[in-house]
């Protein structure tokens, strides 16, 4: 009996603490949402309300029509989609070569690619800018996509190599006996068997691209080609007080990420804990 009430007390303490943590996690989202629904004249009201008393969607309408955030949304999702497809292709080919093929300098090459994991991304910005300028892909979607693929690929091919290496080799050998070539084995055996790992790669790549700021900030000059993060940052510095619109755009740009996360959260947690890398 006594033990029971002790358990119950412990349980309620756990609940209270969990709720406090959850409130700290969620409150900024709530605050953002509320502010995005406030008319401009209420943005700096005192005391600040944390309830949508004068709720209006005018900030959303303005953000999407007057301020072009619909376009930036499409840019972001388009770049993220393209870079994800290219990452899946490049990383899975590379990972298969490292996991299964024999060729000279294999270890050295793999070591170099893994070393790419440790390079601080922003450090590469200056030379990347100059390389992209030479190739004529500054201020273009292609420039964003190619750099994102190159930066994201080391981690993804590392993850896939581990997964491919764990596929029983007998499966592949029997396919070779049946006369299949390397490409068929890769496309029709290895890839379908690796769906969970490919799902992790897809999600992480997509989020990486949606989140990226530094390279887009440096390389994109034309306003219409901005992605959401840089569009929001630019808008905020140019229209210092129009916070309602800033947060309406922010709320809209969070939708794909949060949806992806809530739908695939199992893969997320798996991906994080197996690779130990940050989403």
């Amino acid at each position, binding site marked *: 009996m006594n033990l029971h009430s002790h358990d119950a007390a412990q349980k309620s303490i*756990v*609940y209270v*603490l*969990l709720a406090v*943590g959850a409130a700290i996690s*969620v409150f*900024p989202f709530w*605050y*953002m949402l509320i*502010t995005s629904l406030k008319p401009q004249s209420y943005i700096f009201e*005192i*005391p*600040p309300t944390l309830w949508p008393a004068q709720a209006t969607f005018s900030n959303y309408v303005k953000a999407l029509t007057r301020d072009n955030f619909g376009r930036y949304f499409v840019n972001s999702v388009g770049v993220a989609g393209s870079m994800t497809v290219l990452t899946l*292709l*490049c*990383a899975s*080919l*590379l990972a*298969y070569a490292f996991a299964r*093929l024999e*060729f000279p300098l294999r270890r050295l*090459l793999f070591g170099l*690619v893994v070393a*790419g994991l440790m*390079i*601080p*991304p*922003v*450090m*590469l*910005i200056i*030379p*990347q*800018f*100059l*390389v992209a300028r030479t190739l004529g892909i500054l201020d273009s979607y292609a420039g964003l996509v*190619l*750099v994102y693929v*190159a*930066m994201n*690929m*080391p981690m993804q091919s590392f993850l896939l190599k581990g997964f491919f290496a764990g596929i029983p080799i007998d499966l592949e050998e029997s396919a070779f006996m049946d006369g299949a070539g*390397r490409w068929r084995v890769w496309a029709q055996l290895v890839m379908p068997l690796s769906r969970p790992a490919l799902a992790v790669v897809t999600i992480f790549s997509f989020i990486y691209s949606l*989140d990226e*700021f*530094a390279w887009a*900030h440096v390389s994109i000059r034309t306003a219409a080609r901005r992605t959401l*993060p840089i569009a*929001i940052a630019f808008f*905020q510095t140019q229209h210092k007080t129009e*916070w309602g619109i*800033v*947060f309406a755009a922010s709320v809209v740009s969070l939708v794909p990420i*949060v949806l992806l*996360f809530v739908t695939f*959260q199992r893969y997320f*947690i798996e991906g*994080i804990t197996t690779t*130990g890398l*940050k989403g």
Partner: protein
Amino acid sequence: MAGTLIHGSRRRKIATALPFLAPGIILYVLFVAAPIVYSFAMSFFDWNLSNPFQSTWLGLANYRKALNDEVFRRAIVNTVAYSAVTVPSQIALGLGAALLLNHKVRGQPFFRVVYYLPVITNWVIVGVLFKYAFNGQAGLVNFLLRDVLHLIGSNVLWLGDPVLALVPVFLVEIWKGVGWCAVIYLAALQGVPANLMEAATVDGAGPVRRFFSVTLPMLGATTLFLVVVRTIGTLNGYVSNVVITNGGQPMDQTHFVLTLMYKVAFGSLQFGYGAAISYFLTVFIAIVSFVEMRVLQDRGSSI
């Protein structure tokens, strides 16, 4: 004969591997490997943007310039403080969150998702939000401190102050980092053997004692991993600072190393100097990570 056979099969191996390797390796060389070498070379020149071959050789002058630059030294201090404050905070809070989430209570999966939401939220958005909350006139933070908690008599101009402007930058990092540390710890907690805990309970160890003598030592490797990874992450701090302080405002006093690098390269077009600054940071990060691994590993093995 044997020689040609080996030679032939070696060739065949390369021919098989090449198409698998080519797309990835080409992109990697162009945008990762070559830039590393490129910027190293640039750091020794006064880099001429329109005609690189007419760049002036400076030797170590860019590096010396950085060391004598007060703005750079201030940036180093800010960056190190950012790491020193936010890394232990997020790891301690993350461990606390993981211990809570490890209780098998109802709604546990829901809490897990909620705790992880800050991690996946865009840096720019969080930065902008904190900037708004720390507004000097009618921000939520001033309102809370002045009218609710009565801790301050008048409004604080957070973003106009060379030290206080970094407060929201630090808080963003902690707020975003806790969930990630918690997920990693949570995975590690699954590896703490249940019978070890039971044995400790039978021996009369209370929950606090069990935590310090069983759980914490078992989490040593995870803690080391988190310390190293988050130190590297924070020393590379950039986005939230750019957004909240507009990159070093006021008066270039709130820079991190990378925001200064950005300003030097893309603001004043001193690409060679910018490259030197980024190499400084890279070497510094390598040294710090190495020291952390040595120190924490030694401590771990002595427990």
